[in-house]
């Protein structure tokens, strides 16, 4: 049991069988499907010199995609944080007709294939669409502009904040608010001084999850973005463009930038979740 002895230096007496097999299978599967393929990105990039790598990832067209991808993702995550909190609040605290249905549909962006979301949003926000035709007289164009990218990223980020805040809100003891009210706090004070600090870790976790997802998003964005270089081109798309031109090194270099960002976000999200668990005394 090589695997078992390495991972379990203390070797406490163990009744249940199957540890070596289960862990061994997990590690082999994860290595073959995830870790070895992912390492290909870094090994491929290592064939570039530092100068070549830098030239690719800092070329003006690529930098323009970072600005759009990260900027629109930050803004989308912020919008989702505000409205996600209100939606979670309404679902937990108010009774209204159709609540169960709305609660179930919050997860739609997880279940609806991104390509379907992409063409549906484009149909809505195009100049002749239901929403687009209302905005056109005001001089606002959404589809095929950076604003369209924002709309798609808001869509795919909806569930993250709602689903991280909702359980915390449900578990909150009403005694806290009763104490605040009996001590003379008004509702706004109770919210900002009592509730918000408790909800903050969950809000930030939801924000980070929505942001991380938005930066890597591809399917829902490309239909509505118009994909004009320097204007409405996102970073994942430039990887595809480079691949289609057989520029593997270029595609991989940009992928490394995105992967490093993903790892940092994963770390940040883990820290936030640990903080959230500590703050609210619940696990996950």
């Amino acid at each position, binding site marked *: 049991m090589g695997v078992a002895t390495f*991972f379990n*230096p203390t070797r406490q007496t*163990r*009744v*249940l*069988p199957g*540890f070596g*097999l*289960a*862990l061994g*299978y*997990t590690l082999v*599967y*994860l290595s073959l*499907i995830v*870790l070895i*393929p*992912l390492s*290909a*990105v870094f090994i491929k990039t290592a064939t570039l010199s530092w100068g070549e790598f830098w030239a690719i990832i800092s070329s003006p067209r690529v930098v323009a995609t970072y600005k759009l991808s990260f900027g629109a993702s930050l803004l989308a995550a912020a919008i989702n944080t505000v409205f996600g909190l*209100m*939606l979670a609040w309404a679902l*937990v*605290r108010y*009774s*209204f007709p159709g609540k169960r249905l*709305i609660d179930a*549909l919050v997860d739609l962006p997880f279940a*609806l*294939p*991104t*390509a*379907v979301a992409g*063409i*549906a949003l484009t*149909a*809505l926000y195009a100049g002749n*669409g239901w*929403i687009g035709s209302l905005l056109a007289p005001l001089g606002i164009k959404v589809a095929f502009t950076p604003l369209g990218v924002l*709309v798609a990223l808001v*869509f795919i980020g*909806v569930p993250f904040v709602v689903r991280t805040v909702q359980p915390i809100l*449900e578990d909150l003891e*009403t005694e806290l608010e*009763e104490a*605040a009210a*009996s001590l003379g706090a008004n*509702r706004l004070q109770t919210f900002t001084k009592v509730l918000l600090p408790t909800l903050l870790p969950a809000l930030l976790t939801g924000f980070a999850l929505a942001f991380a997802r938005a930066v*890597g998003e591809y*399917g829902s964005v490309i239909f509505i973005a118009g994909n004009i270089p320097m204007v409405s081109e996102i970073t*994942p798309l430039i*990887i595809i463009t480079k691949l289609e031109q057989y520029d*593997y090194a270029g595609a991989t270099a940009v*992928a490394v930038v*995105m*992967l490093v960002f993903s790892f940092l*976000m*994963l770390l940040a999200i883990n820290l936030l979740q640990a903080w959230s668990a500590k703050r609210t005394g619940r*696990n*996950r």
Partner: protein
Amino acid sequence: MAAVGIVYGRGDARRYETNPATRETDWVKWLILTAALSFFLLFLLMPLIAVFTEALRKGWLTYLTAITDPDALSSVRLTLLVAAISVPLNLVFGVAAAWAIAKFEFRGKRFLTTLIDLPFSVSPVIAGLIFVLLFGAHGWFGAWLFEHDIKIIFAVPGIVLATVFITVPFVARELIPLMEAQGREEEEAAVVLGASGFQAFWRVTLPNIKWGLLYGVILCNARAMGEFGAVSVVSGHIRGQTNTMPLHVEILYNEYNFAAAFAVASLLALLALVTLALKTFIEWKVERGMRDTV
């Protein structure tokens, strides 16, 4: 102890609405409710309705022609095939990983849990790219695969690999917290009483985790059938051969064949609705089961 007559249960909003300390004034309530519901309408409900109205814009005949087109049917078959391979693979993986992580103590457990979540934070485009780097014509194994006449990229195996990568975490992340919460006493009792490890799993663990397992499988399946970015990179978009349903939607859309694109998209939207319905049903079932045991 609040001296209120009726005690409302958890999940019932009336326990907040009847308590002066947790209630907002009416206009604040209506403001929040209006903002939240408008957001819901604008970003979730309208796109969903748009899919079906666009699909039926030119009538049922066009709709039926579009979804019975041979290329559309072949995309449905490929999508089902890809899900039928990748979901069971990740189901077995999820159970094995959860068994190791939830039932045993070992070094690096948290790190392993994070690694399992990794595919969620990687852009789908990169998930496709890595398999092109490995198995593409100029990839590490490209020359070897060419000599032996094996096609992975721009063929079905590549689509399956990319889908498996994307859906790795789904079952595992549902099972790990569930099995951790359940502890290991029941299985240990079974083993002490003479059950084999397999019997303990089959008779004790499985009945305890069946809803969580199903939940993970449903979400895994929805993503496997709907994945677009990763599959798009490795597919090559060969009609009737390497087109999954989402890719077929893209091709039709780019050819300005909007009615047909939305018709195929509506099938995927139905899949999403069925997924959400099953998910809600399982949540209701689990909630009720928990209330019954209390």
